[in-house]
C-alpha cells in the first residue's frame, strides 16, 4: 500500500506532509509517495531529522490510496486530519476582520 509521511508544523501545529523535494506541504495530494515499507522508513528518518531541526513534530507514516480523485488517507482519522473537520465549523455569521479593542 502506498504511503506518505505526515507531521504537524512546529510553529503553528498545522498538518503537513513531506513533499517530493523534502519540504513540508499542507496538501496530502502533493505529498511524496513511498511505495514500499523500506522507502517509507527512509522518509520517516528524514522527517525525524526535520523534527530534530525543529521544523515539525511527531512524524508518522500514513497509508494512502490513489484513485481518480487523487490521493486520500485510508483511515478515517488520517482522512479527517488531511481534510479538516467533517462539519461546517465556520461560524454562520462569517469571519470578519478583527475589531481593534484599543481603538
Amino acid at each position, binding site marked *: 500500500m502506498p504511503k506518505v509521511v505526515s507531521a504537524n508544523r512546529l510553529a503553528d*501545529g498545522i498538518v503537513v506532509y513531506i513533499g517530493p523535494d523534502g519540504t513540508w506541504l499542507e496538501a496530502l495530494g502533493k505529498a511524496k509517495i513511498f511505495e514500499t515499507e523500506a522507502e517509507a522508513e527512509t522518509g520517516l528518518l528524514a522527517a525525524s531529522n526535520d523534527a530534530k531541526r525543529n521544523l515539525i513534530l511527531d512524524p508518522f507514516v500514513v497509508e494512502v490510496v490513489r484513485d481518480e480523485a487523487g490521493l486520500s488517507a485510508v483511515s478515517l482519522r488520517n482522512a*479527517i486530519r488531511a481534510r479538516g473537520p467533517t462539519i461546517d465549523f*465556520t461560524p454562520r455569521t462569517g469571519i470578519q476582520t478583527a475589531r481593534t479593542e484599543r481603538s
Partner: protein
Amino acid sequence: MYRYDEFDKGFVAGRVEQFRDQVARRLSGELDEEQFKPLRLMNGVYLQLHAYMLRVAIPYGTLSSRQLRKLAFIARRYDRGYGHFTTRQNIQFNWPALADCPDILNELAEVEMHAIQTSGNCIRNVTADQFAGAGADEIEDPRPYAEILRQWSSLHPEYSFLPRKFKIAVNGAAKDRAALQVHDIGYQIVRNDRGETGFSVYLGGGQGRTPMVAHKIRDFLPKADLLAYTNAILRIYNLEGRRDNKYRARIKILVHEKGAEDIRAEVEREFVEHREDALTLPQAEIDRIRAYFAPPVLAKRAPISTAVEARKAKDSAFARFVAQNVAPHKAPGYGIVTISLKPIGGIPGDASAEWMEAIADLAETYSQDELRVAHEQNLVLPHVALDDLPLLFDRLAPLGLATANTGLVTDIIACPGLDYCALATARSIPIAQRLSERFGDGARAEEIGELKVNISGCINACGHHHVGHIGILGLEKSGTEAYQITLGGSADETCSIGEIAGRSFSSEEIVDAIEAVVDTYLKIRTDKSEDFLTAYRRVGMDPFKEALYERG
C-alpha cells in the same frame, strides 16, 4: 466577581513572560519537544489532530462581558472566528499558532484570565453550578469557595505532579447542577440543623474508562475546614494514588481499591492530625472573598411581569422560550436566562466571535454585566429582569440564539470528537447535529420533555456519556465508527452511571436507534409528568433493549 489583586496580577503576568521565553526557546531549538511539552501543557497548549489547541480556564464558569469580548477578540485575531465551550466550563480555541500563544495569554491576562492548570496532573479549574449567585433554590453561592480552592491550588508545589489530573466541583443548591458525583471531589453546600452552612463531601467519582459515582464521605464539613480537608484528601492521594498505570491513577481507583469506609477513616485521621497546621480558613478571609461575589443590587420588581404575560399570550415561540430557558431567580421579578449554544443542527458548545460579542452586549444591558458557562455547554445570563425578557428574546432571535431547548432532547452535550481530538475514536458532532435535526425545535421535543443526550467520541468521556439519560459512546470497530448506547445515566443529585444497552450501532443506524429509544419511552411513560429517567428507573432496560434489537 473576583478581581485580581496586585499579587494575582504579578503572578499571571510573570507566567506569561515565562511562557513567552519558553516558546521562543522552543522555536529556536534550544528546547526540544520532550523538554517543552510539559511546559506548554502547563499553559493549556495541547497538540490536537489539526493544530494546537488552547484551553482557557473560566473559573467556576463565571465571566464578565469584558472577558467574553476578549474571548471573541482572540477567536478573530488569533483563531478562526470561534471557540468551543467545554463540559468543564472552559473555552477551547482550536487553531492557535504556538508562536501566538504568549500574545494570547497576554491578552487574557489583561482581563484577569489565564490557561494555567487547564492540563497536566494537577488540580484543574474548579467548577460550580451555573446558577451560582442567582438560583432561587440556592443555599449559598458556591463561587467564593471555588475561588478559595483555586487560589490555594494554583501552582501548589505539592500538587503540581499528582498521579493524575484532579477535578473539584462545588454546588450551591440542593439540586446538583454541577455533576458533583462524577468529580474527584464534589462539595455540596448544605445547611445543618443549627442553621450553619458547610459542605457535604463526595469523593472518588469520575467518568472515563472506569466510571464511578462518588461516595459521600462526610455529611457536614465546616467552611473553615475546606482547605484542611481538601489537603488531607490530596495528601493521601498524592502518596497512595497509583503512578504505575495511567488508567488506574485517578483517585476513584484508590477509593475503589481501598473501600470508601477505609479511605474516609484515613482522610479523617489525616485531617484531624493536621487540622490546626495552617489551613483553617479565618472567617475574615472567607468574608473578604465573599465580598467579591456580593449579589448585584437589583431594583425591586413585582414578582409577575405583565409584559411577559402579555407577550406569552400572543407569541408561542416566546412562551416556549420562557418555559424552557428561564429559571427562577432568588430576587422576585428576575429570571436566569440560558442561552442555548445548541441551535437545531448546530455544533454543541461552539460560539462564533459575533455571538460572543452579541451575548456580551446583552449581558451588559440585561444581566448586570455577568455571565455563566454551564457544563452543558450553554451560556447563562444570571440576572435578567422579567420585564426585559421580551426585549432580550427579540435580540436573541435574529442571532439564532433563542432556541428554546434547555434540558430537552436537542440540548445535547458533545465533545469535539474525531473532528478535532487526537484521542477520539469516532466523531461526536455530526451525530449530535443529526439527532438535533431529527427531533427539531418544535412540539415533538417539547412533548418528549426533559431528556439529556450526551455523546463522547472516545472512552475518556469528555462528552459525559456515562451520565446522559441516553449516552452515546463513539468507538472504532475494524476501521469504522460504531456507537454504543447507554441508558439511565444521571449527573444530578440522583447520580447514576448509564447501563450499556447492547451491541453498538453504525453511524447510519445510530439516529434511528436513539429515536427507537425515545419512542419506547413515549409509549411506556405513565403520563407526560414521568420524565425519561424516572420511566427508565421504573421499567429498566428490557423494553428499550427489545425496541433496539428486536425490531423487524
